[in-house]
């Protein structure tokens, strides 16, 4: 055991030295920010787009000479942990972050992981930014989780309302993968649609994520003749197939989802059939992307070969952590200071045109500010790219 421990220590040290040798420029101090999420296996795309956007931003900041917090300038280092989408591993990852002295972690990417790390995060004073929607993570007495994006129960109603008022949608059908996250999102969507007075014609149909033919899945749904087909919590891998199958079965209505998608994946998987597909995006559509956002995309592409549009929604968490620390330097190792600043932070959003602000929200959904404020950009896919359909806000 002892041998293993020392071995582990030695390996960590060696890698740490190697890493800092590679990245060290000036003699800046290092500020470590953690990432615990899934970067291998079937859901690798979620965590990968996540961690890559953090790494891109960190390298960018370091290249510019680091981030100044209080009187010290830091280089940002992203410490990553692959939890393999296993909640038990996610706990180990959070423990590892605690041991590294990290107080701010982005992730995990799924509901069960986010719930499982909660005890560890609270015991070790870690603020974490999950991409998971269960409300009890963010409502009191929980206080260490900050929702890193817009929840489907926030974007769903906005989308349905828009489509009801502007496209005459009356009948809605839901399909979801037979897994926790999509099913929870479907239930939230159904409730939201009903609250808006829409007629939910089908909400029971589910599919296995490894389905290779969606025709039998969609046939009974489309027989109910909905005006809007909602793909609840759909994985980027399944979205193009579902769209394609629906269109090939002759479905003429609208298709939407509340998760972020990638334009290239849609183009390759469904081609022109995906035209008109509505999803929630981040900030890279030409109408709203600032020069900084464009530079971010360029840098990302240069670093990793290809951009992933899912990263649009994931540029923000790291930005919020750093901005909050800048606003209150004591927050750098004191999460209580961080929580205080959560209530007051307001700085310009560099990724968006106009005078959008970075601030924490969540009062109406969680009763406390435990969500980052990002523009809710609802996109429409057209010929290989996303166009902005409308932009809304969450409070």
């Amino acid at each position, binding site marked *: 055991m002892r041998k293993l421990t020392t071995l582990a220590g030695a390996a960590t040290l060696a890698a740490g030295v190697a890493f800092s040798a590679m990245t060290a420029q000036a003699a800046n101090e290092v500020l470590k920010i953690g990432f615990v999420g899934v970067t*291998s296996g079937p859901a690798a795309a979620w965590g990968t787009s996540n961690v890559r956007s953090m790494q891109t931003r960190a390298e960018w900041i370091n290249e510019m000479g680091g981030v100044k917090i209080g009187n010290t300038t830091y280089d940002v280092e992203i410490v990553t942990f692959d939890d393999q989408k296993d909640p038990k591993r996610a706990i180990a990852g959070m423990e590892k972050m605690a041991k590294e002295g990290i107080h701010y972690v982005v992730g995990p990417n799924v509901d069960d992981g986010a719930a499982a790390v909660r005890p560890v995060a609270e015991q070790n004073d870690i603020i974490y930014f999950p991409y998971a929607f269960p409300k009890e993570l963010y409502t009191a007495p929980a206080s260490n989780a900050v929702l890193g994006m817009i929840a489907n129960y926030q974007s769903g109603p906005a989308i349905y309302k828009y489509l009801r008022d502007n496209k005459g949608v009356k009948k809605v059908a839901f399909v979801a993968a037979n897994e926790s996250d999509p099913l929870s999102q479907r239930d939230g969507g159904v409730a939201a649609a009903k609250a808006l007075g829409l007629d939910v014609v089908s909400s029971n*149909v*589910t599919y*296995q994520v490894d389905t290779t033919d969606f025709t039998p899945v969609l046939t009974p749904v489309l027989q109910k003749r909905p005006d809007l087909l909602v793909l609840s919590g759909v994985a980027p891998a399944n979205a193009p197939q579902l769209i394609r199958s629906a269109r*090939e079965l002759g479905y003429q209505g609208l298709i939407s989802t509340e998760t972020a998608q990638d334009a290239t994946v849609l183009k390759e998987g469904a081609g022109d059939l995906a035209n008109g597909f509505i999803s929630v995006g981040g900030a890279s559509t030409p109408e709203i992307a600032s020069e900084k956002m464009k530079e971010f995309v360029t840098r990302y592409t240069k670093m990793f*070969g290809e951009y992933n549009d899912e990263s649009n929604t994931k540029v923000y968490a790291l930005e919020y952590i750093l901005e909050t620390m800048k606003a209150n330097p004591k927050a750098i190792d004191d999460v209580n200071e961080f929580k205080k600043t959560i209530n007051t932070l307001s700085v310009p959003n560099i990724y968006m045109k106009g005078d959008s602000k970075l601030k924490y929200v969540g009062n109406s959904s969680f009763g406390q500010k435990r969500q980052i404020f990002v523009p809710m950009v609802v996109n429409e896919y057209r010929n290989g790219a996303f166009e902005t359909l409308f932009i809304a806000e969450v409070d």
Partner: protein
Amino acid sequence: MEQIIVNGLYLGAQYALIALGLTLIFSLMNVLNFAHGQLYVIGGFVTYTVSVKLGMPYIVALISAGVSLAIIGAILEKFLFRPVIRKSVREESTMLLAAGVAFFLDALILLLFGEKQRGIPKIVNGVFNWDFRIIMPYDRILIGCLAVLFIVLFITYMQYSKTGRAMRALAQDKVAAQLMGVNVELYSMIGFALAAMLAGTVGGLLVSITGVNLGMGGPTSIKAFMMVMIGGAGVISGAIAGGFILGMLESIGLTVLSDFGDITYLVIFASLMVFLAIRPQGLMGKPWG
């Protein structure tokens, strides 16, 4: 009704092709190849790379997927499975090896082809629509027919070629075949290569319809296991039957049970367990395969 049957047939054809390779390996070497689904995924990615990135015609891409997988299969057999089978006390040890290979291929796929879903443009446009009783896109019909063609080719090959006969002899009785002068090592390698090629070919066929991503390997293996179980492990006809039965079950289940929500697969799995409890060797398997 017609739609359900057509859907089932289409699914069944692609499933059967996957199950064939798995059962071939099992019959020859008693190895449950956990990495079969990964071979399928590699086939899809190779086809994608050749046809989209290199801009070659689809048929070239499909052939290169088959060829490269055959090579990978041969390598896996010669350098990994053969030495482990020779050395281990219990033949289950090959399962650990197969699982290790599955992880390895998963890692390789992630590094080589990335984390994104990939697909190639439709090879044929348009949808066949018979009075809304049967709706089937033409590319699906084409792929389904190709799958059936490959199955027929495979059976013919196994039935009439010298290699095929040797492999069947091996599968039936290894010792006897060896005594009759069949080169066990050579034909095991050919068999593994052939099975990998089948898996790669299905991947190449389906990438034009469902696309491919690195997560599809494991679940595909599990589905293939199920088909092999239904039909009987190590029996070629059983694998084909298993594939079509599972395809049909999925198609019918999803339609009939659609109102009950999340239970289609639960029902399929549960009935499979009951079926095996009653008939432990599957439909056509040797008892205690």
